[in-house]
């Protein structure tokens, strides 16, 4: 077990080294792309806390992602808050919203949970889409100012990288803590968990809120990156993007969603350059992964490594 631990650490160090030095080798366009990957990695890992670790598939993850973005945007543009404060307020505010929504959602299981989380997210979308005076309606909010020191792609890159590393470490600690083990037990067998003294609803509520917090971090970062927000950030198609990313990468491995984010965004940007038929290619990738690689790319690689180790 210890050897694998050391290997993981080496892998992470290499990963980090690559991303720290990358901007010096590639152009600004690529740097922007990688920022998007970082943000998606945070969002997908956050959503996977519920899906892969908790067995709870939420169709409303875009709602909290968008909530983070909107709260940040509104605080900056309507209330004149400084960027740093707004960035923190985004996730905090989203968590507060997650409190009542999560309370209702965790009282339902399986498909009912999924549908209810979808309903709430769509309601949030409608509120933002129709409230023109406050939230900009379908025009969204544009031209959001960010501090001067972050105003270049390069600096925002390192900013996002730092936050991503912090978030991933935090989420990793959570899933490996006793709390994390409890959540996994709930995924495996709710009834048995009940009988060993676990208050099912309370724990599920907690992971719902935590997941929403980190989703909102991603949303707030994206708001700063694009310097705008649109109602689309909350629409169900965004939820499906996130779900595709974590499935693509692998839901039972912590680094899975991050790998999924890299592959997804890379594939998207490359393929779109050559053809307008990205949807059908993505669709076929999805069908392929679902049928043949249910543990995702990371899961597939991990299985290979494990079997070669045994030999």
């Amino acid at each position, binding site marked *: 077990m210890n050897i694998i631990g050391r290997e993981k650490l080496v892998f992470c160090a290499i990963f980090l080294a690559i991303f720290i030095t990358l901007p010096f080798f590639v152009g600004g366009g690529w740097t922007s792309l990688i920022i998007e990957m970082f943000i998606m990695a945070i969002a997908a890992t956050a959503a996977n806390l519920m899906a892969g670790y908790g067995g709870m598939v939420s169709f409303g993850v875009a709602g909290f992602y968008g909530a983070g973005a909107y709260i940040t945007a509104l605080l900056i543009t309507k209330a004149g808050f400084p960027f740093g404060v707004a960035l923190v307020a985004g996730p905090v505010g989203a968590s507060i919203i997650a409190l009542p929504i999560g309370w209702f959602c965790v009282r339902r299981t399986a498909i009912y949970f999924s549908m209810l989380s979808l309903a709430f997210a769509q309601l949030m979308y409608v509120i933002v889409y129709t409230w023109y005076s406050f939230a900009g309606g379908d025009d969204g909010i544009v031209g959001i100012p960010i501090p001067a020191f972050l105003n270049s792609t390069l600096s925002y890159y390192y900013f996002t990288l730092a936050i991503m590393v912090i978030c991933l470490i935090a989420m990793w*600690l*959570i899933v*490996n*803590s*006793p*709390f*994390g*083990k*409890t959540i*996994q*037990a709930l*995924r*495996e*067998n709710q*009834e*048995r*968990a*009940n*009988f*060993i*003294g*676990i*208050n*099912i609803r309370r724990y599920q509520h907690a992971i719902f809120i935590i997941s929403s917090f980190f989703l909102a971090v991603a949303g707030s970062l994206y708001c700063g990156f694009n310097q705008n927000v649109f109602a689309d950030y909350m629409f169900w198609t965004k939820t499906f993007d996130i779900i595709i990313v974590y499935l693509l990468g692998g839901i*039972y491995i912590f680094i899975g969603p991050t790998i999924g984010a890299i592959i997804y965004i890379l594939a998207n940007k490359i393929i779109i350059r050559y053809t307008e038929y990205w949807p059908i290619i993505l669709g076929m990738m999805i069908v392929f992964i679902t049928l043949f690689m249910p543990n995702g790319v990371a899961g597939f690689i991990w299985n290979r490594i494990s079997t070669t180790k045994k030999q």
Partner: protein
Amino acid sequence: MEVKNLKKFFGGISAVRNVTFKLEAREISSIIGPNGAGKTTLFNLITGKCPPDEGEVYFNGENISRLQPFQICHKKLGRSFQITNIFPKLSVYENIQVAILSSRGINKNFFNRADRLVKKETMEVLINLGLTEKKDVLGGLLAHGDQKLLDIGISLASNPDLILLDEPTAGMSPQETVKTTELVKKLAKERGMTVLLIEHDMNVVFSISEIIRVMHQGELIAEGKPDEIKSNNRVQQIYLGEQG
């Protein structure tokens, strides 16, 4: 533990009718009866899986009739299941560990590495179960007998004062049955546990029980020491007679 006038109906059927009995501390006893006698329903009523329609359950003087299973667990009342009920994608080690963490109340902890906690206690349980070699195997991949053992292990892990074992040796080979019976006896003595078994294997029942209770069609029809029960005509007629 005391059960008073317990009744439970499902639809029009009386699953448990007016059952009353008392368990003394440290008593090892069994409940026997033909299938459908209401034994598992009785367990469900005691452990909070379903609420009684009438009657009460007391544990250590406290009325636990309407509590949820997770609350009852924290009162030190544990239970294993007739159909194995484990955490399939968690390893054997993790199955036990999470039960111990929960009973200690440590599972709200966010930032410590779970691995390092309760290692000693987890290994102790695994040694008792004889599953140390398989500690990293995923629960769902174990053989049936080992899964049942794990199920019992999970209930033992929280160190309950009273443990309810629902057909612990069902589907086990004769060797596994002996192993399990010895384990229950040993741990009961060591920890001063009160044990209540539901069993169909008469060898196990008679070798381990100080008191045997017989249920038939939802009612408690006999209660006493093993010899008394063996010679009870009605019991023989209803139950043992059918076996013979």
